[in-house]
C-alpha cells in the first residue's frame, strides 16, 4: 500500500465540517449517518480522472452485459448457483429488456486513476444512493458552488423513471418495497419514491412481508394485504432471497401480471461469479482483475476471497503473500468462494478509498467515495464527499 498523500491530482483534503451538518443531512433524509458519514475530509479529483472513471464505468457495464448474454446462451445456471426453475424468467426479463433503474460498481484505482479495476457490481440492491445523489451535492453548494462534482444521479433517476413509465403494467402505478428494520433501506426506497413522484409516476409503499397472493385466483398479480393488485413493484430485496422464499415460484407464474424492478437478470450481475466470467471472457482487460472460483489459481498468494452470494464485506478474506491480512466472519459462503486478485489501493491519510460509480438506466451518472482504514470495505466504511477541478 502507498503511504500518506501523494502529489497527484487525486487528493484527500482535511476540512472543517459544517457546524450544523447533522441537522442539515437529517433534513435531507440522511438519517443513518452515525459512524458512516464523514465530512471532515473530502476527495479532490481532476476532470481527467473523472473522465477515466466514467469511461471505465461505461466499458465495464458493456462487458457485464456480455456476461449475461453468455450465461443465457450457455445455460450456466448451475455455475451461478441459480435454481433452473428461474431460468426462463431470467431469460424473458433479459430478452424483453425489462426496466432497470440503477446499479453501482465498486471500483479500485491507483493514485491518478490511470488504473481502474472492478471490485464488484452491486447491480440488484445498491444503497449509498441518497448520500451520493443528494447529500454530497448539498454539501458542495455550501462548500464551494464554483467546484464541480461527478454527480447527475438525481436528474438521471427522475428522467429514467419517466422513460420507464411507458413500460409499466396495468394501472401504471409503481409500488416500492423493502425489508423491515433497516433505516438505510427504508430511506433509499423513500428517496426513489420521491424520484418517481417527480417523474409523474403514481407510487405507494409496502414492506416485503406485506406482499400477498390471492390463492383462489391463479391469474391475479401479487396484491397488497387488502387485495389491491400490484401491477408494478420496485424491490430493494435481492433476487437470491426472493427465489428461495415461499412466493418465489410465483414470480414465474405471475410474470405477465406483476412487473418487478430490478429485472430478474440482475441475479446474474449481482452474483460474484460475474467476476470469474468477466475474467474468463475478457482476460487481460485493463479494468478486470483475474478471478477464479473456489481456488486462487495463479494469483500468487495475493487475493481477496469473497462468497458467491455475500453482502457488505461479510465472509471476505484478504490474503497477501499467502498470509491472511484481514477477515470478516459471517453467514455467507455456502455456495463457495470467488478468489479475486488483490489490488493495492493507495492509502490517503491512512484511509483506503473505493469509488462507488453509479449507473442509472445503464448510463454512468456519478460517484460516491467510501473509505476505510481496514482492508475490507463493509458496513464500517465511511462516506466522504468529493469534487473535481476543471482543467
Amino acid at each position: 500500500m502507498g503511504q500518506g498523500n501523494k502529489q497527484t491530482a487525486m487528493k484527500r483534503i482535511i476540512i472543517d465540517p459544517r457546524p450544523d451538518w447533522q441537522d442539515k443531512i437529517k433534513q435531507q433524509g440522511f438519517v443513518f449517518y452515525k459512524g458512516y458519514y464523514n465530512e471532515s475530509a473530502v476527495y479532490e479529483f481532476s476532470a481527467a480522472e473523472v473522465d477515466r472513471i466514467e469511461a471505465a464505468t461505461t466499458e465495464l457495464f458493456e462487458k457485464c452485459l456480455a456476461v449475461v448474454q453468455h450465461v443465457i446462451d450457455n445455460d450456466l445456471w448451475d455455475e451461478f448457483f441459480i435454481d433452473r426453475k428461474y431460468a426462463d424468467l431470467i431469460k424473458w426479463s433479459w430478452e424483453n429488456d425489462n426496466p432497470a433503474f440503477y446499479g453501482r460498481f465498486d471500483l479500485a484505482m491507483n493514485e491518478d486513476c490511470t488504473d481502474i479495476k472492478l471490485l464488484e457490481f452491486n447491480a440488484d440492491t445498491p444503497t449509498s444512493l441518497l448520500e451520493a445523489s443528494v447529500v454530497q451535492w448539498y454539501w458542495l453548494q455550501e462548500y464551494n458552488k464554483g467546484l464541480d462534482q461527478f454527480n447527475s444521479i438525481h436528474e438521471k433517476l427522475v428522467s429514467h423513471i419517466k422513460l420507464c413509465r411507458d413500460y409499466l403494467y396495468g394501472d401504471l402505478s409503481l409500488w416500492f418495497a423493502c425489508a423491515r428494520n433497516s433505516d438505510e433501506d427504508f430511506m433509499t426506497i423513500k428517496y426513489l419514491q420521491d424520484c418517481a413522484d417527480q417523474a409523474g409516476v403514481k407510487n405507494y409503499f409496502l414492506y416485503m412481508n406485506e406482499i400477498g397472493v390471492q390463492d383462489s385466483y391463479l391469474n391475479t398479480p401479487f396484491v397488497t394485504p387488502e387485495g389491491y393488485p400490484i401491477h408494478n413493484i420496485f424491490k430493494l430485496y435481492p433476487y437470491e432471497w426472493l427465489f428461495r422464499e415461499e412466493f418465489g415460484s410465483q414470480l414465474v407464474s405471475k410474470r405477465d401480471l406483476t412487473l418487478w424492478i430490478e429485472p430478474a437478470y440482475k441475479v446474474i450481475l449481482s452474483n460474484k461469479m460475474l467476476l470469474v466470467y468477466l475474467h474468463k471472457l475478457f482476460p487481460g482487460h485493463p479494468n478486470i482483475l483475474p478471478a477464479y472460483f473456489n481456488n486462487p489459481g495463479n494469483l500468487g498468494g495475493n487475493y481477496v476471497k469473497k462468497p458467491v452470494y455475500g453482502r457488505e464485506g461479510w465472509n471476505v478474506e484478504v490474503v497477501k503473500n499467502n498470509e491472511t491480512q484481514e477477515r470478516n466472519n459471517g453467514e455467507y459462503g455456502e455456495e463457495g468462494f470467488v478468489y479475486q486478485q488483490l489490488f493495492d489501493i493507495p492509502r490517503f491519510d491512512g484511509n483506503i478509498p473505493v469509488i462507488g460509480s453509479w449507473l442509472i438506466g445503464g448510463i454512468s451518472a456519478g460517484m460516491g467515495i467510501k473509505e476505510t482504514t481496514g482492508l475490507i470495505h463493509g458496513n464500517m466504511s465511511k462516506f466522504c464527499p468529493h469534487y473535481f477541478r476543471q482543467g
Partner: protein
Amino acid sequence: MKKSSSIVLGSLFVIAAASCGQNKKEPEWTSGNDAQGRTHDTSFNGSRYRYYNNGWYPVYHGLICPGFYSRPYYYGEISRPGFVAPMPPSVAAGGAGVKTGGFGSSAHSSGGAGE
C-alpha cells in the same frame, strides 16, 4: 453534464425522513368537509369520489383517507373507464383470501438487504 444543477426533494420524502425509525402509522381518515361543512362527491365506474384539497379521493364508508395517497386524483383520471384507485390498508373489504408473508423472511437474520 456531470453536475446536478438543482435537486429539490419532495415534501413526502422529508416527512418520511422525519418519521424514519418510527412504526408505520395508519393514515388518518376525514370527512373531507369544506369550510362550510359540506362535501362534494361524484361517482365513476361504481366508485364514489370526494373533492378535497384540489382533487378527488375515493370515499369509503363516508370518509376519505388523503394521507394514504401521494396526491389527489385529477378529474380526468377518475373519469377514465376502468380506473380503480387503491384502497387504504384499513379497508379490508377486498382482502379476502389474501396470503402474505411469503417474502421478507431472509432479511430477519441479516438486517437490511441493500449493499
